[in-house]
C-alpha cells in the first residue's frame, strides 16, 4: 500500500488524500478526545476500543497511515499491539504511537525499542499530535 503524501505542509487532509489514523483506546472519553484532536488537524480517523479490533481492521483494509494506541488496555496492551504490527510484513511500516497516563521510563524505553514512533503522555494535547504528524509523511 502506498502511503499518502499530503500536498501541503501541514495537517493531514489538504493534499489529494487524507492521512488515515487508527486510534485505539478502551476509554470512551479518551477516544473522543484523540479523535477530536486528530480531526481538528484534518486527519481521517477511525477509532476502536481494543487491540483485537485494531488488528481485525488492519487485516481487512490496511489503508491506515498511522496507529495511535493507549498502553494500558485489557486483554491486549498497546505494547502487545505494537509488537504484532511490527512482526507483520504487511503492517510493520505503519508508524505506531503509544499513549499512556503514566510516566514510566522502562515502559517508554521498551516501546521505543520495539519500534514505536513516539510515546505521548496523557492527557494528549493538539501540539503533541501536530509534532508527530509532521514526521509522518
Amino acid at each position, binding site marked *: 500500500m502506498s502511503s499518502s503524501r499530503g500536498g501541503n505542509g501541514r495537517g493531514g487532509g489538504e493534499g489529494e488524500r487524507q492521512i488515515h489514523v487508527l486510534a485505539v483506546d478502551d*476509554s470512551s472519553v*479518551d477516544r473522543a*478526545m484523540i479523535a*477530536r484532536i486528530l480531526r*481538528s488537524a484534518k486527519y481521517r480517523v477511525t477509532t476502536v476500543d481494543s487491540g483485537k479490533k485494531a488488528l481485525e481492521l488492519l487485516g481487512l483494509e490496511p489503508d491506515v497511515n498511522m496507529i495511535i494506541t493507549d498502553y494500558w488496555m485489557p486483554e491486549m496492551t498497546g505494547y502487545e499491539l505494537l509488537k504484532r504490527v511490527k512482526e507483520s510484513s504487511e503492517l510493520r511500516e505503519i508508524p505506531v504511537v503509544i499513549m499512556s*497516563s503514566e510516566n514510566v521510563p522502562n515502559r517508554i524505553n521498551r516501546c521505543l525499542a520495539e519500534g514505536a514512533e513516539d510515546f505521548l503522555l496523557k492527557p494528549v494535547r*493538539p501540539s503533541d499530535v501536530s509534532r508527530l504528524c509532521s514526521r509522518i509523511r
Partner: protein
Amino acid sequence: MALHFSSAHPISALHPLLCFFLHDTYPEMEYASGLQRQLASMKKNLFDQGYLDEQFYQLEELQDESSPNFVEEVVTLFFRDSSRLVANIDQALQKYPQDFRRLDNFMHQLKGSASSIGAAKMKNECTSFREFCNKENREGCLRSFQKVKKEHAVLKQKLENYFQLLKQVGPVDKATHSGN
C-alpha cells in the same frame, strides 16, 4: 416576548415604539448579562475551588462550529463511564478476599478519564485510593472511596448546573444581538 401592559396604558397609547424599546429590549439585555455574569462566576468557582483544572480549557479549545457541543458530549461520556466504574468498585470492595489488583485497574481507568476532562479533585482522590490499594490497606481504600464517590457526585451536580446555565445563556445571547 410578550409586553405585559394593556393597550389602555397611557404610555403605550402615546409612544408604542418607545415602550417596546424600554420594556422589551432592556429587561432582555439585563437578563442576558445577568445570566452571563452568573455563568462566568460559576465557572470561576469551579476552577478556584479546584474542581476543574487547566485540562478543561483544552476541551473548550477543541470545541468549534464543526463540533459545537464537544465539551458537554465528553463530560456526558465521562459520567456514563465513571458511574459504571464507581459501581464496579463498590461491588469489588464488598468481596473477600480483596482483589487489590482488580480494584487498582478500575481506579486507574477512573483516574485516567477524570484527568482527561480536567476533574482535578476527583483525580486526586483516585490517586489517594491507589496508594492505599498498593499497600493493600482495605480500611484506607474504603475511606478513600467514600471521598471519591463524594467528589464524583458533587462534580456531576456542578457540571449539570453549569451546562444548564450555558444553554440558557446561549439563546438569550443570540436574541440580544439580533435586535441590533
